[in-house]
């Protein structure tokens, strides 16, 4: 591809396959066409739906303000693709450059983009997970099923896990007036993403809105009645919650199972790629024809010590998709890196939450504007003397300023006065993130064996 015309040929008559027909897949396809790719494009998706938007699924849909099957993503341009929807990819042959499908077909490619995203981590005990009334929330179908059940008027809703999705579900259910219990293993809601200081505010918000919030507990078992409907949940503190709807919100696992044995550097934490979204193989060598984008990708970020970050953010999916698409049909010198500062938003209990940077890398937090007490504030996260992230509760209009501090590695704590700095925000305090050495929901991987020949990786699933 060194100006020998092969790139032009690829753009003219090449075959590009995108696995994953959601936000990242669609935006990548649009970019390919916008940048002059006129070859064949195949979009493979395991769901039967055309690409749709997920943020409304845990908010407007549960509130009954939008239908789960009406969140199709707007098409920014025609993509003129062959769509293989409702057919999961089951394997990848890197040498033959083919993607195997569940229906036995296989699809050849010259360039492959993997945008398979994540799926909800299911309740670990299969029999309990299958009880009627136990839900996860990731897909449009999940959301439609849950919305139907909520419309029927539940006696009580139990949400297991108080991350962003769990908290948004609890918020929507309270807004509709249902009794809600939230069980969270950590010390507070949102604690993994934003730390204990902000988590305490989230806990107050939940309780003020009537959520029966139980922290520091695990659900140990779900019980069904004779007809197979969920009836109650047993908690690690010995208590029981009687409930007819359980929503399991224990985060997500990356959809990389279909790549097992392919030789691609894909595992439970995603697909490792370079900053230009090119995937690594298991030997740590970058491929030139396989790219990854969106929730499933793990890219090194120059601003955060080249750490491999995988982000389940809407904006990240869009940006990575565009970058991957651009790079797969560009000369190496024209490729662009993924340098967006991570950003996400949530809406719960009437509060708009937005963050920039990577708060969870921070160790300290300074409340630079507003006050925790009012639940309206701006928190700046510091890591080793620099600003690494910021979170805004109903203060989003200030975030571009803090993003600039992160981009320019400004010193932490910021030394300047701001409007609305209160006395409780005069100095930084411990952001109170959970000890990373204590296992969370995530599975762990350990290495065993002595000689290189018998060294083995052992995979320990969650729970």
């Amino acid at each position, binding site marked *: 591809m060194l100006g020998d015309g092969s790139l032009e040929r690829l753009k003219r008559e090449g075959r590009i396959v995108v696995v994953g027909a959601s936000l990242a897949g669609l935006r990548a396809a649009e970019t390919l066409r916008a940048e002059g790719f006129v070859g064949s494009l195949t979009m493979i998706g395991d769901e039967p739906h055309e690409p749709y938007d997920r943020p409304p699924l845990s908010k407007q849909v549960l509130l009954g303000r939008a239908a789960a099957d009406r969140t199709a993503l707007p098409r920014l341009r025609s993509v003129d693709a062959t769509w293989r929807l409702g057919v999961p990819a089951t394997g990848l042959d890197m040498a033959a450059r083919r993607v195997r499908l569940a229906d036995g077909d296989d699809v050849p490619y010259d360039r492959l983009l993997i945008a398979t995203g994540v799926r909800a981590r299911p309740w670990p005990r299969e029999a309990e997970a299958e009880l009627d009334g136990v839900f996860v929330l990731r897909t449009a179908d999940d959301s439609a099923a849950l919305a139907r059940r909520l419309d029927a008027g539940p006696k009580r809703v139990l949400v297991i896990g108080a991350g962003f999705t769990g908290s948004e579900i609890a918020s929507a259910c309270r807004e509709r007036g249902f009794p809600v219990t939230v069980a969270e293993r950590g010390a507070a809601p949102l604690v993994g993403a934003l730390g204990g200081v902000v988590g305490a505010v989230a806990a107050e918000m939940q309780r003020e809105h009537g959520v029966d919030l139980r922290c520091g507990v695990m659900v140990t078992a779900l019980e069904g009645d004779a007809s197979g409907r969920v009836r109650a949940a047993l908690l690690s503190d010995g208590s029981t919650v009687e409930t007819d709807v359980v929503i399991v919100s224990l985060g997500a696992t990356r959809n990389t199972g279909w790549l097992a044995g392919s030789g691609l550097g894909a595992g439970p934490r995603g697909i490792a790629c370079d900053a230009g979204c090119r995937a690594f193989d298991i030997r740590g060598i970058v491929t030139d024809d396989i790219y990854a984008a969106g929730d499933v990708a793990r890219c090194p970020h120059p601003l955060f010590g080249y750490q491999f970050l995988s982000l389940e953010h809407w904006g990240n999916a869009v940006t990575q998709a565009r970058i991957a698409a651009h790079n797969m049909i560009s000369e190496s010198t024209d490729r662009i890196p993924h340098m967006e500062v991570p950003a996400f938003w949530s809406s719960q209990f009437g509060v708009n939450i937005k963050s920039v940077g990577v708060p969870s890398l921070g160790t300290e937090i300074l409340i*630079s*504007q*507003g006050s925790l007490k*009012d639940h*309206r504030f*701006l928190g700046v996260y510091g890591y080793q003397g620099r600003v690494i992230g910021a979170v805004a509760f109903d203060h989003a*209009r*200030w*975030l*571009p*300023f803090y993003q*600039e501090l992160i981009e320019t590695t400004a010193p932490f704590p910021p030394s*300047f*006065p*701001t*409007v*609305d700095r209160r006395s409780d925000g005069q100095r930084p305090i411990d952001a109170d993130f959970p000890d990373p050495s204590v296992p969370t929901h995530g599975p762990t991987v350990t290495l065993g064996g002595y000689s290189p020949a018998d060294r083995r990786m052992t995979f320990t699933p969650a729970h």
Partner: protein
Amino acid sequence: MTQSLLHQILDHANRANPYPIYEQLRKTPVHHEDGGPYVISTYYEIRSLLHDPRISSDARNLASTARDPLAEPAREESALPPGFLRLDPPEHDRLRRMTNRPFGPPHSPHRVDGMRGELHDIVSGLIDGIGDPGRIDLVEQFSYPFPVTVICRLLGVPREDEARFHTWADTLAASLDPDPDADPTERGKGAHDARMQLGMYLAGLIEERRRNPGEDMLSQLATAKGEDGAMTTMELLSTAALLLIAGHETTVNLITNGMLTLLRHPDVLQRLREDPRLAVPIVEELLRFEPPVQLVPQRTTLADIEVRGVTIPKGASLWLVLASGNRDPQRFEDPDRFDPDRRDIQHLGLGSGIHSCFGAPLARLETQFALSELARRLENPRLLEDPPPYRQNAVLRGPRHLYVSCDGIRP
């Protein structure tokens, strides 16, 4: 000796076309003349300062040594405490939030949209009443009365009082537009009296609405009992005065600048006549190309801050020249061209950050209605004077009169 750039901005002789001065200004993104304000004229710097929490809107943070030719005369604030436009958080946030409750989402998502029918009727009535199509003063006969009538309806001013209300609004608006030939003492007294009378009128109306609330904004503001509590009567008065002044003086100019620009671009006017939906991108491009608020002179620094290598000292007066940022070639391609087909019009015309225009949804809708109806109904309109005579004001810039003639007025 050439005039300093600051004086050129203020010089009425340059009002009709200030853009060449802004172009000069952008060569020094942070322009400072001895003792005067720090003038910021480039897009990215303005945008970033509008989101900078080290920048205050509260005049009490100005250093006593900061001299500013646009500092408001003390008498303007004497009658009432500052509105939320001139306050910092948390007071700003509380008052703006409370004012927003009866005005916009999430609590009142349909307020502005629900006025469509009413806006259409007001616009139609004003065009019907134009009279002689041979010489129309679009300002007097249309773009001035329109927003005042709208704000009256929004606040809940009874129709029989609208005439009195218009008179006070006229006088107050005129006081924002200092005429160098008028006697300043006389004019100052007139404005003070108008302010007093308007204040007393509003206070009476608020009392009445507390006893007998309706669906209007004033009633809802007067009886609000949300998480933020209630506004004091003084807060209510300054908020109502802010909505009145900020809400209409800007829209008058946006509509007038809009018609002026369309008459200078007859091809766009023709397209609008054929497709009223074009009003949406036309208004956005107008806000970039001829924004009614040319500059924000009401900011100061809470600390020494560095902008493009220049340290602006704590307590300094800042001017953010929005209209110049909107024509910054670093941000917009071919910025001096009026082009409603631009794909990316992220202008500064309504500001940005926490003080971004509160009335934006209403101003947009008013102007879209006004321009598309004028385009549809005025037959073969043409400018009688180009450039038209401008108001004195360098901040709220717009024609004092816009004389237009046309062959007739379509039904």
